[in-house]
């Protein structure tokens, strides 16, 4: 069959389409966004009527995917690692309900925080929920694991996590396709208690989940994606490697064979029996994991006598944080450090910045002017392009924690007496997690100004649609904001005086105000012009 050049994200999407998926659900987040973007462009997905529109946030997406699984069809939910925090409630409970139609939970981690606020490792969540986790090491495995994951999910009626990392999500390589599977037919679960987590049922379900762990370990011990090379020439070291790190290990040895026994883990729960075998054979163990030291910590537990040295992120053989690369793996194994030449001192950083002509620039300049008299430290924000308003010359915001935290942190500060307390949130982020916080403010009559920067898109991830588009005023009205305190303007240099005045008036109003600067993102506008040309 044909070979396609695909990003890891795209290979997974194509794999799921070919494996008979009926719906993708997700909220954009680097490095996961390209999965659903690919599906939205796919003729196959359109012809087969596969669900592919964006959800409001990761929690609604996770629940929708679970509902599709309830109805007997195959579904996937996609998100970045921190999105799983938002979806954690349905995620954890889906381990107890289990799946009916195959259910894949795809989480793309971002070690080194290329585009994220932390580098949490989703394998911990998989371990926590006690569900199988698949961690592809290359683009072909991304494709193949969609088939394998659905099969595993339907065999055991359990959701399966697919864990990606940035360098695989965003790296392209050749992928060979397989024969396509049909979508499942609509069919309700036979056991109508399956999704009913009342305590009495849930206790039974939890016991069952615990009992199933043996089977999941057996599956990973026989997995086509795990490799056990326990015979070798040199037993001074034993190597355990996972996902992407496996490639770096292979790269380091090039054409020569790896002299040490080695286990490649791409399916979890880990094949502990085999790992014990390796431990017993070798004088020391080395752990190469992209992300946090998940296996390394597990191997501190029962069955390991603690006598043999273990090397990895915990003992400083590898950096405790950040992504791996071939150089780090080579040095950890005692090979000489390769290096070109040092970066000359004249090279300066070039951090990301708001685009030339970005509407947020005008909104921030006016806001800075309006609050000049109060000094800095009054503006709470969160996650989106507008977070770049932190950078000079704007220095306009003072917090970025998680999606939606702008409004609620400003509320808490206002409750403490901070005046003015201002929240700056993007339009898509408001749809994601801003509305409930605003409702808290209405309920408490909090003295707050909420600025919803409306660039009519999800900008940071490259311009995706979002669910509240075109309805921001209606939503605010509906939540209970007074009509005369919902103010909109066109953020533009020429309107500086008007914008500043509006901010000042709403700061002066004692209660909940919403200010909506509205002008389309220059990037999506450019794309539109290009398409029309």
């Amino acid at each position, binding site marked *: 069959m044909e070979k396609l*050049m695909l*990003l890891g994200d795209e290979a997974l999407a194509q794999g799921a389409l070919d494996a008979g998926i009926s719906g993708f659900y997700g909220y954009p987040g*680097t*490095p996961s*966004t*390209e999965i659903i973007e690919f599906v939205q462009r796919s003729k196959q997905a359109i012809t087969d009527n596969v669900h592919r529109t964006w959800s409001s946030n990761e929690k609604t997406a996770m629940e929708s995917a679970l509902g599709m699984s309830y109805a007997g069809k195959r579904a996937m939910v996609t998100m970045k690692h921190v999105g799983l925090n938002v979806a954690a409630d349905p995620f954890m409970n889906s381990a107890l309900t289990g799946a009916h139609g195959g259910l894949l939970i795809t989480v793309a981690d971002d070690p080194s925080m*290329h*585009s994220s606020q932390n580098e949490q490792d989703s394998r911990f969540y998989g371990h926590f929920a006690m569900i199988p986790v698949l961690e592809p090491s290359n683009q072909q495995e991304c494709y193949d694991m969609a088939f394998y994951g659905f099969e595993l999910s339907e065999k055991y009626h359990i959701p399966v996590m697919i864990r990606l990392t940035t*360098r*695989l999500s*965003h*790296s*392209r*390589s*050749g992928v060979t396709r397989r024969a396509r599977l049909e979508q499942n037919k609509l069919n309700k679960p036979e056991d109508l208690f399956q999704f009913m987590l009342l305590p009495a049922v849930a206790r039974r379900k939890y016991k069952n989940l615990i009992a199933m762990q043996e089977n999941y370990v057996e599956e990973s011990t026989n997995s086509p994606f795990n490799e056990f090379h326990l015979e070798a020439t040199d037993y001074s070291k034993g190597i355990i490697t996972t996902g*992407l790190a496996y*490639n*770096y290990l*292979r*790269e*380091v040895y090039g054409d020569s064979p790896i002299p040490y026994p080695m286990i490649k883990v791409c399916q979890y729960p880990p094949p502990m029996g085999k790992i014990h075998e390796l431990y017993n054979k070798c004088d020391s163990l080395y752990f190469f994991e992209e992300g946090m030291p998940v296996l390394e910590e597990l191997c501190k537990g029962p069955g390991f006598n603690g006598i043999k040295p273990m090397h990895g992120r915990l003992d400083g053989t590898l950096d405790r944080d950040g992504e791996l*690369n*071939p*150089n780090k793996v*080579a040095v950890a194994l005692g090979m000489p450090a*390769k*290096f*070109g*030449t*040092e*970066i*000359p001192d*004249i*090279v*300066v*950083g*070039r*951090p*990301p*910045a*708001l*685009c030339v002509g970005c509407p947020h620039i005008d909104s921030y300049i006016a806001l800075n002017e309006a609050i000049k008299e109060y000094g800095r430290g009054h503006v709470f924000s969160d996650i989106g*392009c507008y977070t*770049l308003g932190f950078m000079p010359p704007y220095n306009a915001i003072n917090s970025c924690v998680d999606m939606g935290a702008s409004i609620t942190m400003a509320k808490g500060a206002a409750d403490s007496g901070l005046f003015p307390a201002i929240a700056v949130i993007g339009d898509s982020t408001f749809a994601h997690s801003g509305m409930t916080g605003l409702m808290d403010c209405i309920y408490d009559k909090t003295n707050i100004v909420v600025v919803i920067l409306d660039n009519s898109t999800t900008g*940071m*991830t*490259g311009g995706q649609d979002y669910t509240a588009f075109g309805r921001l005023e209606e939503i605010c009205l509906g939540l209970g904001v007074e009509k005369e305190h919902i103010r909109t303007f066109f953020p533009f240099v020429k309107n500086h005086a008007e914008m500043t005045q509006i901010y000042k008036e709403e700061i002066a109003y004692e209660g909940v105000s919403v200010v909506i600067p509205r002008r389309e993102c220059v990037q999506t506008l450019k794309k539109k012009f290009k398409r029309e040309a």
Partner: protein
Amino acid sequence: MKKDIILAGVGGQGILTIATILGHAALKRGWQLKQAEVHGMSQRGGDVQSHLRLSDKEIHSDLITMGDADMILSVEPMEALRYLPYLAADGWIITNSKPFVNIPNYPEPEAVYSQIRKAEKHLLFDADQIAKDLKASRAMNIVVLGAAIKHLGFSADEIEASIKAIFTSKGEAVVEANLRALQAGIALS
């Protein structure tokens, strides 16, 4: 045969197009490739790079090993220097000399050039000006590509065929502009 290339620039300058063309030509030969890209926050005017690996054998790592790159191919001069730790001792630096200044503390261009000239093998030229003179301003990246192909072991015919295949949907004029840019680049090598 194996070629490890670091493509460098600033978000939006077109390094991924260079990667696509080289990748297309490599696949035509029946080679394998891996191409690690930068998406997300950094694309907003920040420094971006792509690790492009082409080989007639299996490629393992998506990232190039530091000290192993055959070439740094850059559309911006200071960005070329950012990846020096990756460059092999006998590697090439081929770069546009036109600074992309979107930061207040951009160094003196001459200081940047003198660092580039320290590399034994380098090509430094104003690709923006060359493309402009050809009335193909948007094909600056293809001028840079043109200067590199000989040193990567690709023929002009191979790359022309790839440019035609990739740009054909954008119309004759775009294909022609890119082919002119390619030739101008080749003339520099």
